[in-house]
């Protein structure tokens, strides 16, 4: 991340055109951190930084899935409901069949929602906004149906090993944070160093061109939704372990935060552009903002105003930078 900050010079921009203006999100995050640290000295305490990382971990996993879909030219509003579905189904299975079975069931439930989204969007060619708006509502309904609206935690709670995952640390960092860290490496490799990744970018950049160059467009598009669903499912299990229960209300408005984070990270909503690590920077812009405002004792109503304003400002700054660079070159 630090090398990205120092390399924002013009030559880099000339070499690789998609890097133009790409450092605004990181700059925004650094400014935010600086402001938060000045206004609330405890912001930089080890305890708080640990909290911030954990608070962002679940959303980081959701946002990576969202990045797949958005690079592929799509959109997914159903991730929040999927987080809740996975958490509840995973917890229910876990109570009967053990931790591993529960986690697998949660991820599989998410992947299934993704597969349905993918099939409807790619094969039936329904607009992704409408499709996933539909599954967002539908899946939330299913969650309430299967749980009867009550949290899933069993008579004596979820298995201790699963709850321990939500609090355990490795090298001083919560296991919940290691999950997106490892995924970021693996999935960045998948997106930027494999033929599959190239196809995702190609499909998002232009379906016809991708089709003419022999890419099976439907399959690639559908696969991005499966990734998104499976990652939302994994996020749901992480959240369940943090909340020590499957919560039917979990994940509300996650879709909006995830989309905002991906766009803050500089991805284009028209597809074909985006980077996983930048989406995660976007996530942490949102998390640091919320956490910093809490530490500064800012009134909860003003927090909403501030968060909305920062989203618009950061996205606008990124666009302006793009335009400015476009005129110069």
């Amino acid at each position, binding site marked *: 991340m630090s090398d990205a900050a120092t390399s924002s010079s013009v030559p880099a921009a000339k070499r690789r055109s998609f890097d133009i203006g790409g450092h605004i999100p990181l700059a925004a995050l650094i400014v935010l951190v600086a402001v938060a640290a000045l206004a*609330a000295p*405890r*912001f930089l*305490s080890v*305890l*708080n930084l640990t*909290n911030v990382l954990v*608070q962002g971990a679940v959303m980081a996993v959701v946002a990576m899935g969202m990045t797949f879909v958005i690079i592929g030219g799509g959109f997914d509003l159903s991730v929040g409901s999927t987080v809740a579905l996975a958490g509840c189904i995973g917890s229910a299975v876990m109570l009967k069949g053990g931790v591993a079975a529960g986690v697998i069931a949660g991820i599989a439930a998410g992947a299934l929602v993704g597969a349905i989204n993918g099939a409807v969007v790619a094969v039936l060619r329904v607009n992704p906004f409408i499709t996933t708006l539909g599954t967002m509502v539908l899946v939330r309904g299913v969650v*309430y149906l299967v*749980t*009867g*609206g*009550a*949290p899933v*935690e069993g008579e004596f709670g979820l298995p201790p090993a699963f709850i321990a995952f939500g*609090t355990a640390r490795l090298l001083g960092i919560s296991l919940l944070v290691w999950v997106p860290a490892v995924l970021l490496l693996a999935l960045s490799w998948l997106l930027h160093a494999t033929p599959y990744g190239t196809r995702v970018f190609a499909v998002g950049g232009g379906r016809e061109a991708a089709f003419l160059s022999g890419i099976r467009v439907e399959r690639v598009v559908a696969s991005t939704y499966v990734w998104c669903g499976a990652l939302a499912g994994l996020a749901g299990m992480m*959240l369940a372990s*943090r*909340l*020590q*229960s499957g*919560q*039917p*209300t*979990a994940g*509300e408005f996650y879709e909006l935060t995830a989309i905002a984070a991906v766009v803050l990270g500089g991805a284009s909503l028209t597809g074909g552009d985006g980077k996983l690590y930048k989406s995660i920077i976007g996530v942490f812009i949102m998390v640091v903002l*919320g*956490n910093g405002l*809490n*530490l500064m*004792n800012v*009134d*909860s*109503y003003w927090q909403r105003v501030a968060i909305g304003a920062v989203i618009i400002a950061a996205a606008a700054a990124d666009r302006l930078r793009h335009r400015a660079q476009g005129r110069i070159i």
Partner: protein
Amino acid sequence: MKQFLAAAVLAAGTLLGAAQPARADDITIGVSLAQDDNPFYIQMLKGIRARADALGWKVITVSANEDKQKQINGVQDLVARGVKGVLISPIDATGVNAAYDAAAAAHVPIISVARGSTSPNQTLHVAMDEKQVGRDIAAWTAAKLGDKGKVAFLGGPAGAPTFRNLWDGYSETMAKHSGIQIVSHNDGPLTRERGVKEAEDAMVAHPDLAAIYAANDDVALGAQQAVVAAGKKGKVLVTGMNGVPPALRAIKDGGLSMTVELNPVQWGQLGVDVLAGYLKGEKYNQQVFIKHVIIDQSNVDDVLKRMQAG
């Protein structure tokens, strides 16, 4: 108890209506609760159904899930289906007044249970004495803290009068304890996730935080998790409200310090009873208060036993 009441109702029915056979199956009531997924409302609905069954009434429910337009539509549908009365827990005090208007226009009594409305068409309101609950929680907290320390207040959703009243009662009492300082006051959704996050932040902002007020048990369960994870179990008091079973278990474990039992089952039962009385022509005050009980480590075992028994 239930059988006794059912028997009493049957006996009363026989005495009063000897000439005409009980036509209990004619009575259908509608229920519209603010949320379907909140354990409090799930329990309340159980109470409503149990008492309605005992009276031989039918119950139709419509779902709202904190969507005001949906709640208004739902009540309109209930009225259109010819229910004899509506029990409603309005999403907020003014936002669903159209639902009350719809019931009144059809001369259907509409009784608010738990949350209330400002609508002139509200027949009456089965309520907890919210300000008093706020005062009681504050008094309990101040006593445990020895009248000094910092308190974070995690309030409920903005706009809901219940949570404003709780805050009024709580802050009014805390103002009398000059050693107690309310260091933050945030409104927000009633979720466990928010409880975890805001408690984490509050403990960072105020390392010497002594207590966290949480608007309900879901928020409190989240907050107590953060407190336990920070190794401050018992050092930072966490208070909740509602008395749901997971909260009782947390009190037994010591992470949660107290909750206020509103006994949602009783609310539902009282709602049906009041509706039944009203339909028979009995007079009530505009507000019918239900009693609340403070649960902490001293009595949690009794409450758990009572729950298992009943």
